[in-house]
């Protein structure tokens, strides 16, 4: 377009200005994608915890940590408002946590399939294979989350080794964008066996593997208040920490909101700097074209037209910078995800919404930045402008 030629007048200057916007948009896209990923993780967790209470050993967190007993499940089940209690065993897939982990580290999750008696509302969809069943108890079979499956490069029917024990893959989950992607689901007995091996011999000897649990998932009766149940659990059983949906939202939600804000904040600040550079560039451009503006006004260009020209040009700078920034951001997020794939870490979720709004934002920023120089240009007296040295 003709106006692109105007940008070509001062190629270095235009390039530098566009680069400024590009960097800002790239930051926004990359950090925005990170924030998207975090949001998906948290949303998944929030939805999961909303309608239940999860009990862990005191000092433990979300099932990781100390040991509970399956017998406690009966105690809890006896409390008012409690419908079903499902004991489970959770342990880390691997003890060395090297590399970046966004959200949950890879875990082994064990429970008796079907013990929730249909109370669990969190949907798990299977890409291939099948879900675990109660009949699988006693066997070493596993359903892998999508990220773990990719990390192991495993397919249904193949064998994977979890903590030194071979498991047969019977199912692989669809991506959920949250915790299940990074988990290996095994039957309760198998998990208990794996767990007891992690304990020091002195402790392990005193425990009955079949009674080990690290968490109790408590499903409330319809209409029961999870908060009340949590309080009752605290009162009646010692050494445990119950967590409700509200607790989760409070703790995790607050932290991730802060993280989101920081990430987006960084992106916006870089963009602000980019925007200021556009204002500067357009102001210089207008000053250099003073005579030309004078001539255009003299031969009949209205003030509005002059303004329009300048604003469109600066919007173009924004648009080009935005598209380039999006492209660069796309490359970075794709490379980042590829690099993290081996450690089952997907860091970025570049949604269509993020992409579109980034470019739109860049364009609008460009146009807005051009507005002040445009106004100034349109107010020039044609005669004075014509004579400008």
């Amino acid at each position, binding site marked *: 377009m003709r106006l692109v*030629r105007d940008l070509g*007048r001062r190629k270095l200057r235009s390039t530098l200005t566009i680069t400024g916007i590009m960097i800002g948009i790239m930051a926004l896209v990359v950090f925005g994608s990170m924030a998207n990923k975090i949001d998906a993780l948290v949303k998944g967790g929030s939805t999961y915890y909303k309608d239940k209470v999860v009990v862990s050993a005191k000092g433990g967190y979300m099932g990781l940590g100390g040991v509970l007993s399956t017998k406690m499940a009966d105690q809890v089940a006896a409390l008012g408002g409690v419908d079903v209690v499902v004991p489970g065993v959770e342990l880390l897939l691997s003890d060395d946590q090297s590399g970046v982990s966004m959200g949950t580290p890879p875990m082994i999750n064990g429970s008796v399939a079907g013990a929730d008696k249909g109370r669990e509302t969190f949907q798990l969809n299977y890409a291939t294979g099948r879900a675990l069943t109660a009949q699988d108890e006693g066997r070493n079979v596993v359903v892998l989350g999508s990220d773990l499956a990719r990390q192991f490069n495993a397919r249904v029917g193949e064998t994977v080794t979890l903590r030194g024990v071979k498991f047969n893959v019977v199912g692989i989950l669809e991506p959920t964008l949250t915790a299940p992607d990074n988990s290996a689901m095994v039957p309760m007995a198998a998990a208990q066996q794996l767990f007891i091996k992690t304990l020091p011999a002195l402790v392990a000897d005193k425990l009955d593997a079949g009674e080990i649990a690290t968490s109790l998932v408590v499903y409330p009766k319809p209409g029961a208040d999870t908060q009340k149940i949590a309080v009752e659990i605290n009162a009646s059983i010692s050494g445990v920490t119950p967590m409700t949906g509200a607790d989760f939202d409070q703790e995790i939600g607050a932290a991730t909101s802060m993280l989101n804000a920081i990430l987006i904040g960084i992106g916006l600040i870089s963009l602000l700097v980019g925007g200021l550079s556009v204002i500067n560039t357009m102001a210089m451009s207008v000053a250099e074209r003073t005579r030309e503006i004078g*001539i255009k006004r*003299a*031969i*009949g260009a*209205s*003030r509005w037209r002059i303004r329009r020209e300048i604003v469109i040009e600066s919007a173009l700078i924004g648009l080009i910078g935005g598209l380039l920034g999006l492209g660069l951001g796309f490359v970075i997020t794709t490379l980042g995800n590829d690099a993290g794939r081996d450690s089952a870490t997907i860091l970025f979720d570049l949604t269509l919404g993020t992409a579109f709004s980034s470019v739109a934002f860049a364009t609008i920023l460009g146009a807005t930045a051009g507005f002040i120089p445009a106004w100034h240009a349109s107010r020039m007296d044609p*005669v004075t402008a014509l004579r400008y040295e």
Partner: protein
Amino acid sequence: MAILEGRNLCKTYRLSRRNTVEALKGVEISIDQGEMVAIMGPSGSGKSTLMHILGLLHAPDPNHGPAPELRLAGEDVAALSDNARTKIRARRMGFVFQDFNLVPTLTALENVQLACDYAGIKGKQARQAGLEALSLVGLEDRAGHKPAELSGGEQQRVAIARALVNKPEIILADEPTGNLDSDRSAEVLALLREFNREHGQTIVLVTHDAEVGEACDRVIRMRDGRIRDHGQPATAAAVPVMATAAGAMAVAATA
């Protein structure tokens, strides 16, 4: 018939708090359709200011005394808004300046089409009109060249084409030959005269160049913000002007 008439035209510029310049001190002027008129005078005589007012680039001062009158083809244009004046300039007038006439990033044709754009002529029609205008000045084969690829004389001819393309009622030229050597000047002058003689185009020129003045139907001489001599149609010119002291000074000053 008078295409442009003005009376009681005054213009004072305020350069700073204490520095004002009375550029025009009450000018009466009448330009007939089909005339080619030169306005000449020493620096500070107000000739450029007069042209800016005639070209509706500036409005005449409202005056404490008699109100200014300015008519274009009989219409009152003395007290129009900036937007209204801009519209008239776009549709009914053409301008040629001394230098830097053209937009450097546009081709010759695009420069000419700029005037079409502002005049509300679009698309195919604009392209057609642009090419016609360029061929009138003999540059149709340079339509795709940018100003940097054209000589000074050619650039000026493109500017003339641009001034013509919207078929204006009047063309105003401010020192159109000022930056050209004598050969190119003669070329440009000949072109303007052709449009005047053969197409009846009304042209008003501001110039320092006596030769340009001689090529015109009459020369209006200004001094100190006033018109000293409205000039006579070609035949009666030289002797009466030289006979008066003011005339002699005016001629000497422009030499």
